């Protein structure tokens, strides 16, 4: 097992190098650079760009060098913990992301808990009461959640929340708390606002999760060991939870790999619609503006988290399921 983990760790290095090269290439592909985008955006609004410092910044951040050279500059800086500089914000990348990260993690964690708390009971109920009215009803709701794009739902909900209840649109707290340090009052204000994004983002995931839990559990429930357990007189709860349910969790564990990056990036589109101060809109905006160090460093973080997430789920899976662990001729 230890050798397995060590090997996986070493494999991460080339994986990440390839990822970084890919990220950099994709960012280089669109024509022009941040400054060209910036100039044309300003022009589109009938303004002149603040050109006085463009040459200065270009030189400072090696934009006058060929791409390959820039790639190595970026990589070397990144490895040293210097994530570069955002042209758009004119601040170091770490300063910009830092603030938003906590709220993003908070929202994402709550969303995941919300998804699980709803999806598991419903999924188990649907599987054990297959083709009952309850199963149909809940499945219908789940599919509805899956089918409606959550940004659309967010727009509709926001509009009616404003027209009917006069609630302000978007945001994660009352405006007066925005620049203040965390306090009890601020925290309460956040709690008052946070349920809406959590529910909206969670609904899609919940729909999908219900289907997955139901399907995986159904697969197990038909197996002979379940019949045997029942026949032997195992109480129904134990006959469900101890074996078939545990077996059906494999899909869920292997999914952890993708959960980790999504915790950090948040749901981009919903966050934009709801004007949430999370990292999602930041990333989208950085990509649009070709703010390459901000976008690049952020994507690199996501790549790292994905790789770590996959490692964690592989290890967890091996620990949970001896069938996975003992494959390839290994013995206990």
């Amino acid at each position, binding site marked *: 097992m230890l050798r397995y983990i060590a090997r996986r760790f070493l494999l991460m290095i080339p994986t990440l190098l390839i990822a970084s090269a890919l990220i950099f290439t994709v960012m280089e592909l669109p024509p022009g650079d941040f400054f060209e985008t910036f100039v044309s955006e300003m022009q589109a609004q009938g303004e002149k760009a603040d050109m006085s410092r463009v040459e*200065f910044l270009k030189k400072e951040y090696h934009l006058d060098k060929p791409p390959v050279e820039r790639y190595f500059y970026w990589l070397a800086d990144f490895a040293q913990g210097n994530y570069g500089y955002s042209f758009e914000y004119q601040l*170091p990348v770490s300063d910009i992301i830092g603030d938003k990260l906590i709220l993003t993690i908070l929202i994402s964690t709550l969303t995941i808990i919300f998804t699980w708390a709803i999806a598991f009971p419903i999924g188990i109920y649907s599987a054990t009461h297959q083709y009952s009215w309850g199963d149909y009803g809940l499945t219908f709701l789940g599919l509805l959640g899956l089918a409606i794009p959550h940004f659309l739902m967010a727009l509709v909900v926001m509009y009616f929340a404003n027209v009917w209840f006069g609630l302000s649109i978007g945001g994660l707290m009352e*405006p007066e708390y925005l620049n203040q340090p965390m306090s009890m009052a601020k925290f309460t204000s956040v709690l008052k606002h946070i349920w809406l994004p959590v529910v909206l983002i969670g609904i899609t995931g919940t729909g999908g999760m219900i289907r997955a839990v139901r399907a995986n559990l159904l697969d197990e429930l038909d197996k002979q060991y379940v019949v045997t357990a029942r026949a032997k007189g195992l109480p129904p709860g134990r006959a469900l939870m101890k074996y078939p349910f545990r077996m059906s969790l494999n899909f869920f564990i292997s999914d952890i790999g993708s959960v980790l990056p999504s915790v950090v990036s948040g749901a981009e589109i919903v966050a934009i619609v709801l004007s949430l101060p999370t990292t999602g*809109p930041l990333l989208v905006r950085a990509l649009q503006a070709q703010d390459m160090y901000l976008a690049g460093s952020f994507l690199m973080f996501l790549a790292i988290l994905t790789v770590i997430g996959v490692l964690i789920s592989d290890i967890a899976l091996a620990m949970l399921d001896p069938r996975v662990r003992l494959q390839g001729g290994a013995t206990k």
Partner: protein
Amino acid sequence: MKTGINRRILSFLMFAIVAFSHSRAVAQTALVEPPILAGLVKDGVLPPMSERLPLSPLVLHVAEMGREIGKSGGEIRMLMADQRDLRIMTLYGYTRLMRFNLKQELKPDILQDMIVEEGRKFTLVLRKGHRWSDGTPLTAEDFRYWWEDVANDKKLSPGGPPIAMLPDGEAPTFEILDSHRVRYTWPSPNPSFLPALAAAQPLYILMPAHYMRQFHQKHVNADALQRTVRAARVKDWTALHEQKARQYRAENPDLPTLDPWRNRTAPPAERFVFERNPYYHRVDETGQQLPYLDRIVINIATGALIPTKVGAGDSDLQARYLSFDNYTFLKIAEKRQDFTVKLWKRAEGSRIAIYPNLNASDPVWLSLVRDVRVRKAMSLSINRRDINNVIFYGLVKEGANTMLDGSPLYDPAFQTAHATYNPAEANRLLDEAGLTKRDIEGYRILPDGRRAEVSVEGAGDSADETDSIELIIDNFRAIGIRLLYRVSQRELFRRRILLGDTVLSLWAGWDNGLAGPDTEPEALVPSNRGQYQWPRFGQYAETSGAQGDKIDIPEVQELADLRVAWRKSVTREERMDIWRKMLKIHSDNAFIIGIVNSTPQPIIVSRRLRNVPDQGWFSFEPGAFLGIYHPETFWLTDAGKRN
């Protein structure tokens, strides 16, 4: 103590003098402390108003401007899309050394006086006792610091001083006459200098030296500076200096300013609070210090959602990020919310214009669009009345791309030149240009046998544009030219035009349709690669001949020569004459085919907010959007209650 008394006596004397020289001067009424500052003055945190103001403040005669004399206090909210928009406050504040008024005349603002000799010797006279927002006096040293330690520092300004300071590449001699007078002398006239100071994005020729010095290698010891650099996590001291010195984009809350409101929030943030500058130099005729509004709060929201949020009542004053498309939605919201929607006018020479590319790479089309008859025919073929009625509800003006009726250079003849609907004349001109043969569908045939089929390219970011082009396609069909509309992403769009791949493109006309004789006429001559009618001539001018093509059209060369004449001009009359000639050349040649102008711009104003004009021009240059309409005189009816 003694100096304090002297100062007071002196200020009394100065006010007496001002009172004598201007019959309506402020000194006749006592100065009125803004309520929010009264407490601070009482506690001794701030000096009283008489000491904060310059000896001769700038008096705005609010009543004569047709506005109400307001009450100090209160806060309004605005929405912006990102941190870069903080520059909006520098625009709305519109406080400059010199300032354009609504008649496009230059008047001193921060400066008490500006003495110009022979168009090349500029003596700038500061107001005595004028102070930065932190209370430090504004002196000649602040000008010297910028000129010697910033603009001429090899590291801070690798490209040297800004262009407006270098007519014909020559730098001025800078002299300090005394603590409040400085002089710039050039060997030849520099008419660009004053307009640059008054521009929406101004040329800053001063910096708060007392504050900036701590970030300058020359003024502090290297170790201490190195520590600050490391703490700020920037590369070196030049980056630090650059970051701290941003005046246009007011990001640094510690940077002293001369603007009416100063930023109190360090970025990154989702909400920026701007507070009144207690040392601001303008007062109203009753002796109240301006601005009336104590605070302006800018909340950051997603750009595309701003109209929705405005409709939900989240902004008290908003024009940016609203467009005419939103008008009906805002009108419905007006009934529910506490705001009114006003319609101002946009000041582009033309809201939508067709740019024939005089640097196109297709040789056949190139010779066609270079033929003035073809350009005129295109212009004559467009039914502008239809476009106005169908797309703009008949609210806009139809006309060529030229100066609007709010400009001192307005000429109705230029507006209508080749801009009336006359397909018969258009057809005649095209026949005359040699395109006589037609194919079976009625389209003309080009000299090389191809059908006269061409794509008109756009960036497609407004519905007005995409809707109008549909009508124009029909109009062009009637003169035997087949138009195909093609949308590309903005950078690709620019690039294709520069490479000559695009023959016709669609964009707004001149940004500034209200220019006066003092406006630098760069939009009218090849000056940069963003000019879609002659991108490569523009690139040639921009790179001093390193890239692009040399002008090879006599009329364009004539324009370029006139610009040179403008840059050597001394008097306003001379410049007026040059501008008129240039506009005439443009009108005769239809280099840019304008369609409609004066399109409406919705601006929503809280019912509590007074003094916002019902009519106005909304444009970056001139006017700094709202800036020229004196937002410092806007006031809240419930200002007293809130404080």
